[in-house]
């Protein structure tokens, strides 16, 4: 049984079909790449998988169970984490506060509960070190570089041991070194059984870490490709053909 199955998923905004019929499966420890031109429905699809949007039709199955995420928190509680394209960080909060945003561990004191600030700082420092960053947990995110912020967004997803990790353009602001660290981490997560959905304009990243590539066009699946055994050039040509509907 697939860890994640997307069945005839659709999302309509008013009269516009952003996603009209998308189906694919994803096993534990597998990575798929989602590619497509602007408006192909990639972001809408990812938002449905992460509980931001509710589907207009179709279903999402997690280990065979039909899940209807009422909110991003519900998706995260089911083990579906996401790194958003714009990172979705609060610049006036520090690293630790951003990593635990919405899921702050708290300590009980009689009838009251207080934030476990020390615990959050300690765990935040650990997960940042695992990502190759030594940024202190009390540093304000607004004072950090684009690459460092991207690592905070990654740390937020990884801290909670996801079963499915959605990465929406995760390398957009990273230097080559940091991209290598992140892609190494994706490989490691795969080996630990985490299912990965990667959206990236960098085809090299997609071909490097993904076992399959799902090509979207106008809200539908235009085709599915397996990079293994193919040359990069042939894959690029096939992806381009599927995305545009025109032979290269």
């Amino acid at each position, binding site marked *: 049984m697939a860890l994640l199955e997307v069945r005839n998923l659709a999302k309509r905004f008013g009269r516009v079909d952003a996603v009209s019929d998308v189906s694919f499966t994803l096993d534990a420890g597998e990575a798929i790449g989602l590619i497509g031109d602007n408006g192909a429905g990639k972001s809408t699809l990812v938002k449905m998988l992460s509980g931001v949007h509710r589907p207009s039709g179709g279903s999402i199955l997690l280990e065979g169970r039909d899940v209807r995420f009422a909110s*991003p*928190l519900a998706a995260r509680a089911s083990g579906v984490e996401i790194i958003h394209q714009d990172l979705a*960080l*609060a610049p*006036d909060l520090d690293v630790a*506060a951003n990593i635990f*945003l*919405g899921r702050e561990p708290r300590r009980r004191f009689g009838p009251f509960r207080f*934030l476990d600030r020390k615990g959050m700082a300690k765990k935040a420092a650990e997960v940042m070190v695992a990502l190759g960053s030594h940024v202190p947990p009390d540093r304000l995110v607004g004072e950090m570089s684009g690459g460092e912020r991207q690592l905070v967004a990654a740390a937020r997803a990884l801290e909670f041991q996801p079963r499915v990790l959605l990465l929406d353009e995760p390398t957009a602001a990273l230097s080559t070194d940091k991209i290598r660290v992140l892609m190494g981490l994706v490989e490691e997560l795969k080996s630990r059984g985490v299912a990965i959905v990667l959206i990236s304009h960098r085809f090299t990243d997609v071909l490097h870490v993904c076992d399959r590539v799902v090509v979207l066009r106008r809200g539908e699946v235009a085709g599915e490709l397996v990079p293994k055994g193919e040359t990069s050039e042939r894959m690029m040509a096939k992806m381009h053909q599927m995305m545009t509907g025109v032979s290269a």
Partner: protein
Amino acid sequence: MTGSTTVQARTFTGTVVGAVRAAAGRLGGFAIGLIIALGIEIAIFASRSPYFFSVINLTNIGRGMAIVGIVAVGATIVMIAGGFDLSVGSVMAASGMTAAWAMNAGLGIVSAILLALALGLTVGLLNGTIVAYMRINPLIATLGTLGIVRGLAFVVSGGQEIVVSDMAFVELGTQEVLGIPISVLVMLGVFVFFGWRMPRTRFGRYTYAIGSNARAAKLAGIPVARWQLAFYGTAGLLAALGGLVTVARVGSAQPTANLSAELDVITAVILGGTSLAGGRGRLFGTFLGLLVIAVLNNGLVLADVPTYWQQVVKGIVLLTAVFADEIRRSRREEG
């Protein structure tokens, strides 16, 4: 001996410098600037008036900031969360009138206070609902409730003041404990309670998160609208408390009470370093902002400056605070 003394002096100087640096780091440059401004104010006014440091005058400064201070705590929370509340002056007047009416109707002090607080909370929740669920700009939303609540205070009272008949309530506003007016103690209690709570609870954490990036907070699963309701509700509740203290001090409730109090409140909050864009600010900063304004007002009175000029000074202080906020924001964006 001399060498040892020199080393000790250096160690002492190093410790003091270190402590000052640590304090500056904790307080932030803006708070240090306010403390310096306050020091300059005190030095000028104290040198011009022998009464400045008298107990009576210091008590007057405390009384002068107590009511605005209580309300400013709620306003700081709302503004850090990216909101704005112009209705506080009207809520203060309406709550005060409710309490006075309830006491004169024989409801008793506790019931009257609870009724007034309930009114403040209700208006706060209404503000929150309009802003968070109906997505109306907070300036417009609270300008609307400002008019409605003030208008209703006039309609219900017929424009007449209500003299409080329960002297026990009036005593609450005029009595002192250990030489400190009860109104000042109430203000300090509110500051300590929320100042302690903000960094330790989700209430405080989400105030900053929502003000900093409401979309990010929503994507993180935080029920943003519900929390906005809580912030505006708190502001309404504290405005009502401010209204109660006003009535207790004056001994009567008037529909014209606390007119344009929102201006004093907002000036103190912005002067204290809370960003108009949300996400940044501290209650300690607001307290310093209040102190700077209270000392300024008091000093102007001692220097026999006509009252009208005080309005002009207040306006200048507000504009200066907004300008300082704008500079800070531009620097942050450039950085």
